[in-house]
């Protein structure tokens, strides 16, 4: 059977090319998302500061629930620290030679005049053996007022031993004497510079002095990694710890690498999910089209005595051969696509430049298997009808468009998709954040699938309406109208990728613009403050700075914003789930002067002590009413109970939850932004001047205003949009290939019809012109359906987020989508028709298909 399949494919080379391309690109797409996912799981950078450690112990940074499976987990945004006592306990273990507790201090070092302060990571000198670092010039820091710099950093700053540098911690600058420069004993300088302080000074600057971010361990001689891990875990007893050994220590050394990997996983999850769904959809559609074009041949096979099983096996073997070859050839382009996406993310700055892609065989194997399996299933499924038909009927049917009514299951499945789409379109009502907004795109996709399934039923009235005026054009219009209306199943197969292209692009692009629009509108209305002071690089403004700002005579209300997340465990149909919300720690006093979150219910004035205010859809999601107590987890996983005192509207531009500073306690870092409003008696200019001279004294503080705050929020939304758009662009490229493919395949399969028309006296121009009209019918239908498919969910989204059913975003996007669709569709029909007409009709009429 494989031999026959091979020969058939070879003989029908030109017809198989379309399917082959669709399969190859699908493999490439799935491989690319697989490579991104694998990189998210396994990519690493070389450990630097912990290069000499045999193990590094950190807190459990992933929140899980008892009874929840592995999907019920949430990465905690705040560092989970380990108690300082643990260092001594570990040091006492026989397996451990040295144990050193390490603070990850976010410091900034003031640069020579005119330049922005450099962010550096600060550590106690007692952690130097973990790298190991040794002094190159001068000495190690021996007193609280001394600091050692890595040589690269010292060169950048142009300082040497004996000179002074300004280190900024919590926005407060302090002078330190450079005791010496240090170098890594095994590797050169790597990611950014580090500064080493006297251990006591490091303890003093740490947010939690008696807790460490990590504990580095040098093992006793001859102790294996497994042994060490077991010993450390049993010594930690009640404290949940994660022990990293070998290269994995980079995960705890570079928290941004961990974040970047999380981002890669997230991107590959959303992009990969879409990519898999769409490519399987396209592959199935392409195979249906190719089997459809071969009905005649299959009928002949039936007539000469092939059993249905043999036909299925033959088509199955063809699908297998084709998908295996195409799959293998698609792997390499897949890697290239992944590389291109990786490079694009790097340029956007969402991935650190030294985090490499991990290219292993697993994604390729999965992609090839997935594609092979899909094409086998799809190939056999579409072959069922021709394979089981009565040969005599098959011969007759093969000569004509299928006339029997569409299968009932298609109608049922189509309606199910419509219902699902309706509920997906409603998610923004229930969940007014970016997750909810994603419901609009899901709804659009489901509607496309519904269009594909309902096909003929849906298309008949539309086509009738559309071709009516065409019939007036005597020859070409009439021919186009008749042939568009005659085979609605083929029309449906050709239309689906086009509708997908239009609907998908519109819904993705406008979902982003609606989100961005909502963010900026909410920020503009939600921030009432007259000025914003922002700290960049020193880990947030310390309490002293906030107090000093409040003490200025020109300021009245001062609201520091501690940005974090809170996680709320909830139960969905009895299964534990985690809902994660962005949260601001705020000072309740004067809050209402600086922020107007759009109160819905309750009183923001009660936001003191163990309380929380939430965006209303978030509160509804967890089923909490104002006045009720909620069990939540803070940013570092600490469980606490808070009372819901208010619900509000502007969760998208501000934060989805607000908690008073005292409820967050030590579990969240200091505020990076501080909102200020002017005292009644101070003119805005006075406030500005006072704040200007205030921030002058603090190198990492910057004075901005409400507009820049909004700009920042917009920039963040834009960045998220760009990350999404990169994935979208790749998927769209694939859909475009599918569009061209299906149109070219279906037009090329009609060369016999063209020849017949030519024989009975149609000029080449008449045939071409009929094809042009038919292309127009297809394009208009695709744009119409695609627009409807995208517009319905977008209208809901836009109504909820912006208060108007017309989605935000430039109308140019729509024009561009329409123009590109038209161009692509037109060329894909007219060019193959032109080339089919080049064959003399006497040959064309004899062609089998």
């Amino acid at each position, binding site marked *: 059977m494989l031999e026959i399949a091979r020969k058939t494919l070879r003989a029908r080379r030109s017809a198989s090319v379309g399917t082959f391309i669709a399969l190859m690109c699908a493999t490439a797409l799935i491989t690319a998302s697989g490579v991104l996912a694998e990189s998210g799981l396994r990519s690493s950078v070389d450990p630097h500061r912990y290069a000499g450690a045999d193990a590094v112990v950190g807190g459990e940074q992933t929140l899980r629930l008892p009874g929840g499976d592995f999907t019920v987990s949430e990465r905690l945004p705040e560092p989970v620290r380990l108690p300082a006592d643990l260092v001594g306990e570990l040091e006492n273990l026989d397996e451990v030679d040295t144990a050193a507790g390490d603070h990850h201090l976010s410091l900034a070092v003031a640069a020579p005049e005119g330049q922005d302060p450099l962010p550096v990571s600060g550590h106690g000198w007692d952690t130097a053996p973990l790298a190991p670092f040794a002094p190159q010039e001068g000495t190690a820091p021996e007193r609280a007022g001394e600091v050692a710099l890595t040589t690269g950093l010292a060169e950048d700053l142009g300082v040497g031993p004996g000179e002074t540098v300004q280190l900024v911690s919590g926005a407060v600058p302090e002078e330190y004497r450079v005791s010496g420069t240090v170098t890594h004993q095994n590797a050169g300088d790597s990611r950014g510079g580090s500064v080493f302080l006297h251990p006591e000074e490091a303890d003093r600057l740490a947010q939690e002095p008696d807790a460490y971010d990590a504990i580095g361990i040098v093992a006793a001689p001859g102790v294996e990694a497994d042994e060490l891990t077991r010993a450390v875990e049993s010594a930690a007893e009640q404290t949940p710890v994660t022990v990293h050994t070998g290269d994995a220590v980079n995960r705890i050394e570079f928290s941004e690498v961990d974040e970047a990997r999380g981002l890669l996983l997230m991107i590959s999850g959303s992009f990969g999910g879409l990519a898999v769904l769409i490519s399987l959809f396209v592959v199935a559609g392409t195979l249906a089209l190719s089997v459809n074009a071969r009905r005649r041949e299959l009928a002949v096979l039936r007539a000469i005595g092939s059993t249905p099983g043999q036909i299925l096996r033959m088509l199955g073997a063809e699908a297998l051969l084709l998908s295996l070859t195409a799959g293998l050839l698609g792997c390499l382009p897949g890697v290239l696509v992944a590389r291109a996406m990786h490079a694009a993310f790097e340029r956007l700055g969402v991935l650190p430049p030294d985090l490499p892609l991990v290219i292993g065989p697993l994604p390729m194997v999965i992609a090839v298997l997935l594609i092979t399996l899909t094409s086998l299933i799809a190939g056999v499924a579409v072959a069922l009808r021709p394979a089981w038909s009565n040969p005599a009927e098959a011969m007759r049917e093969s000569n004509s468009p299928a*006339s029997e009514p569409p299968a009932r299951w298609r109608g049922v499945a189509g309606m199910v998709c419509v219902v699902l789409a309706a509920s997906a379109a409603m998610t923004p009502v229930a969940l007014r954040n970016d997750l909810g907004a994603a419901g609009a795109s899901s709804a659009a996709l489901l509607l496309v699938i519904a269009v594909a399934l309902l096909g003929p039923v849906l298309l008949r009235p539309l086509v009738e309406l559309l071709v009516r005026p065409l019939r007036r054009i005597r020859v070409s219009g009439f021919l186009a109208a*008749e042939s568009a209306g005659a085979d609605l199943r083929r029309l449906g197969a050709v239309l689906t990728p086009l509708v997908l292209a239009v609907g998908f692009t519109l819904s993705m692009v406008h979902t982003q613009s609606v989100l961005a629009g909502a963010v900026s509108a909410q920020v503009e209305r939600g921030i009432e403050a007259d000025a914003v002071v922002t700290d960049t690089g020193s880990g947030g403004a310390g309490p002293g700075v906030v107090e000093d700002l409040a003490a200025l005579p020109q300021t009245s209300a001062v609201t520091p914003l501690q940005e974090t997340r809170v996680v709320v465990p909830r139960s969905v149909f009895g299964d534990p789930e985690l809902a994660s919300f962005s949260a601001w720690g705020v000072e309740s006093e004067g809050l209402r002067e600086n922020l107007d979150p759009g109160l819905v219910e309750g009183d923001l004035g009660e936001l003191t002590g163990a309380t929380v205010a939430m965006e209303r859809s978030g509160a509804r999601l967890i089923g909490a009413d104002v006045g009720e107590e909620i069990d939540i987890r803070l940013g570092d996983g600490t469980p606490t109970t808070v009372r819901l005192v208010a619900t509000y509207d502007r969760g998208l531009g501000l934060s989805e939850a607000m908690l008073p500073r005292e409820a967050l306690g030590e579990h969240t870092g200091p505020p990076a932004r501080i909102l200020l409003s002017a005292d009644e008696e101070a003119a805005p200019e006075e406030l500005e001047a006072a704040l200007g001279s205030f921030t002058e004294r603090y190198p990492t503080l910057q004075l901005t205003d409400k507009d820049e705050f909004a700009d920042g929020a917009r920039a963040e939304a834009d960045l998220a949009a760009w990350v999404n758009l990169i994935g979208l662009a790749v998927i769209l490229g694939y859909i475009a290939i599918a569009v061209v493919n299906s149109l070219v395949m279906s037009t090329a399969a009609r060369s016999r019809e063209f020849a017949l028309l030519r*024989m009975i006296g149609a*000029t080449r121009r008449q045939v071409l012109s009929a094809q042009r009209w038919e292309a127009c019918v297809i394009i208009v239908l695709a744009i119409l359906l695609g627009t409807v498919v995208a517009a319905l969910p977008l209208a809901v989204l836009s109504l909820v987020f912006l208060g108007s059913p017309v989605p935000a975003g430039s109308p140019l996007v729509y024009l561009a989508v329409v123009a590109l669709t038209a161009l692509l569709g037109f060329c894909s029909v007219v060019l193959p028709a032109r080339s089919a007409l080049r064959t*003399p009709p006497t040959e064309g009429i004899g062609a089998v298909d």
Partner: protein
Amino acid sequence: MGPSGSGKSTFLHCAAGLDRPTSGEVWLGETELSGLSENRLTRLRRERVGFVFQAYNLLSALTVQDNITMPLRLSGTPVDQEWAEHVVERVGLAERLHHRPAELSGGQQQRAAIARALITRPELVLADEPTGALDSRSGAQVLSLLQESAENLGRTVLMVTHDPVAASYAQNVLFLADGELVDAIEAPTPAVVSERMSGIGGR
């Protein structure tokens, strides 16, 4: 008539201006075809020549009526209702005008194709094995119809066939072998035609 590969179809295609001869001239009535442009040839074909092929003759997307009137539509000529009704009645498809080809039998399809060939009142009707795919009864109907169009409607019918019975419907039979005319008989009967054919086949 002639054995496979003797050049029958090529001859037919040259006569219709679908193929150009490498040497020699093709005359259709007063018109010499080799000098005409592709567009002139197409126009000539739809005005003066009618075509009937072996099978799969009709456009599957169109009804029988639209298939029959297609050549008129292509040339932009209004339908002569009287003639059209006459032709449709002759081929016996008056009841089936609004069906699609898939709903017709092979013989009916072929008769529709003949109606299409006649609708333009062509001088010449070319038929390439028109009964090749039909049973003998439908074949006989189709052949009588072609014969009638020659005798009663005054058309020239040029038919290529393998079948001595089909050939016996004609007034003249020409025999082709290896691209050359090798024999001719007038007022043929199936027996005479078979005899000549076997003679040619044996050469």
